[in-house]
């Protein structure tokens, strides 16, 4: 083997030197302007000593700088996707193109697909039950047999669910009582935050603040608002503006969706399989007799979403709310709906909490925004489970997005963190998805159990828990360390990266147990996943609040 040239030889080889006297340090001393001190220890700092000790100091500074920079990146609000500097489109930073596929995981039907009915939507059931009680048509003392209407029919097929629902209503009453009796003091700030968003942002005394909702108009005027009327209400043009191509339409509408505040957006063909039956806002009884009709102009769907604010998401249950994300996704929905009307096309906003004729999750999948998860929610690469969607249905012809396969659903096969941490046991722990839900095999979130936790939870409206969202390893901020995982994992055919990441997640981090998240009167410690930020701790800013509790989350 030829003799290798070592590094010093290369550096000192005259061939490799720049012939410039100012830079030629190894020229004889007398030819260099600054002499003597170059090679001698004469009391000053020699060049060699400077380099030697400078390099040691530089190495130490680099390690310190790496630590400092890492810490600052982790702590910075700039890493809060959807709230950082990259608001207008930059939040959707994961390149989905290499991962496009024909059908998303768990979206291949295994039997006949059945459309969900309004009674399959838990909030319609709750609304129905409360309505019956208020009108004196029924009360829990009368039992399930006497429960009237479609909701009675629904629960007679699922008596166990009925028992859980009755238990939930009891817990709801108890938690409201506690709240009135002073429990709210600890939660003063998250409660104020929630109420500001709900009643300052989402609703006013006439109903929905933004977007306009056909139910409100029906209630005000008594006049039904069928979609053929409502969806065209602001269309002023005789003829819609014609796009140069579907591609142009997609590009423009996505840009506008970002401009109107969304973090992620996908566009797909409207698929009636994912539309509720017997549900149509603006019609009598919320469209209870609508049947399975599909408005002809519902051809395309623009679906988008934003995250809940990250500090609160991690501080579930008591310090978290969905309303900050709901509010922002509603704003996007309202603005985009109007924008499309202005171009001469019909449009109808579908928005949270319950102003929908469609199910959101399947459309997040068909448009390639994310993948279905064990916890029953859709996870997206940028936000994990922390995404609250809204949509606009229209008849614009678009170039449609395709589903993706980024192996998130595969990760759920190994990871059961959400199921193990769920305080109500609503998330299945089976290794593989086993339940056939209306034609699709998937993990099935037990809505009744989940709501049971909500009803007894330590929030101002007894709505929401969201522990599963916070603990999911995909629900992480946009820092370089998570970006590396995000990019590596779907490209690793061996599955070693995901196994390694999961092992780290399970062993490096210590967070409360499922039971700890529950209310104190149910044996929990009202723990949070992360401790709440200072600005949600009432005892830190108000007089007269004695801190009688401990924080049990990570920090």
């Amino acid at each position: 083997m030829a003799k290798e040239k070592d590094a010093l030889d290369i550096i000192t080889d005259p061939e490799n030197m720049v012939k410039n006297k100012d830079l030629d340090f190894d020229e004889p001393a007398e030819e260099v302007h600054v002499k003597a001190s170059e090679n001698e220890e004469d009391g000053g700092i020699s060049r060699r000593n400077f380099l030697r000790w400078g390099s040691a100091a530089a190495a130490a500074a680099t390690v310190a700088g790496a630590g400092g920079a890492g810490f600052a990146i982790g702590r910075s609000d700039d890493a809060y996707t959807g709230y950082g500097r990259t608001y207008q489109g930059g939040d959707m930073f994961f390149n989905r193109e290499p991962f496009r596929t024909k059908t998303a995981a768990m979206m291949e039907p295994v039997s006949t697909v059945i459309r969900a009915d309004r009674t399959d939507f838990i909030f319609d059931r709750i609304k129905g039950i409360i309505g019956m009680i208020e009108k004196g048509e029924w009360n829990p003392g009368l039992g399930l047999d006497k429960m009237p209407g479609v909701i009675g029919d629904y629960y007679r097929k699922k008596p166990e669910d009925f028992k859980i629902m009755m238990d939930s209503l009891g817990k709801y009453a108890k938690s409201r009582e506690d709240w009135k009796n002073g429990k709210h003091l600890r939660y003063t700030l998250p409660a104020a935050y929630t109420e500001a968003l709900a009643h300052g942002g989402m609703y006013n005394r006439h109903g929905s603040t933004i977007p306009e909702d056909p139910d409100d108009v029906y209630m005000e005027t008594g006049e039904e608002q069928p979609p053929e009327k409502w969806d065209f209400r602001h269309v002023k043009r005789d003829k819609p503006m014609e796009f140069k191509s579907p591609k142009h339409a997609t590009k423009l509408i996505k840009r506008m969706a970002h401009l109107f505040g969304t973090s992620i957006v996908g566009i797909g063909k409207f698929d009636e399989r994912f539309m509720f039956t017997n549900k149509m806002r603006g019609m009598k009884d919320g469209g209870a007799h609508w049947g399975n009709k599909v408005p002809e102009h519902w051809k395309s769907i623009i679906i988008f979403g934003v995250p809940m604010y990250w500090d609160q998401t991690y501080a579930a249950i008591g310090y978290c709310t969905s309303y900050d994300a709901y509010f922002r996704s509603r704003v996007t929905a309202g603005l985009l709906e109007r924008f499309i009307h202005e171009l001469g096309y019909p449009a109808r906003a579908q928005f949270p909490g319950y102003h929908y004729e469609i199910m959101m999750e399947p459309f997040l999948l068909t448009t390639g925004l994310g993948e279905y998860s064990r916890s029953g929610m859709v996870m997206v690469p940028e936000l994990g489970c922390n995404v609250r969607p809204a949509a606009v249905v229209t008849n614009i012809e678009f170039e449609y997005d395709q589903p993706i396969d980024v192996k998130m659903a595969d990760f759920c096969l190994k990871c059961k963190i959400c199921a193990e941490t769920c305080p109500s046991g609503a998330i299945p722990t089976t290794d593989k998805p086993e339940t056939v839900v209306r034609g699709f095999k998937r993990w099935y979130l037990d809505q009744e159990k989940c709501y049971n936790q909500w009803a007894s939870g330590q929030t101002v409206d007894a709505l929401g828990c969201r522990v599963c969202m916070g603990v999911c390893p995909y629900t992480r901020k946009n820092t370089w360390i998570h970006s590396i995982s995000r990019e590596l994992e779907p490209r690793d055919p061996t599955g070693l990266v995901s196994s390694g990441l999961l092992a780290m997640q399970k062993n490096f981090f210590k967070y409360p147990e499922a039971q700890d998240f529950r209310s104190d009167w149910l044996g929990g410690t009202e723990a949070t996943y992360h401790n709440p930020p200072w600005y949600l701790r009432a005892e830190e800013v108000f007089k007269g609040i004695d801190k009688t509790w401990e924080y049990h989350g990570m920090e």
Partner: protein
Amino acid sequence: MFPGTTILNYLFWMAIGMLQVLIVVGAYEWLKRYDKKVSWWQMVLMYGCFASFCLTIAGGATLSGEFETRGGLFFIGFLGVPHIIVGAIMARLFIFKKQLVK
């Protein structure tokens, strides 16, 4: 590193870049002083190990910044110790090697 500023971050990373040059050039000075010889690829490997160690520190600190300090410390411990071991082995093999042929 400096949230909210427009220029300090760039200056910081420029300074860190300059320090890397100083580290490598200074390392050769140390080697020269003790009359050690290290080939370029050995230096690349050793510098790579150092850079990777810095990333480990940064990764742990990032987790700590995300309010997951325990995870961050485990991260540094779990990945940092192997770096130190590998670094020591490289130093032994590349710098403090026995002079087989004089």
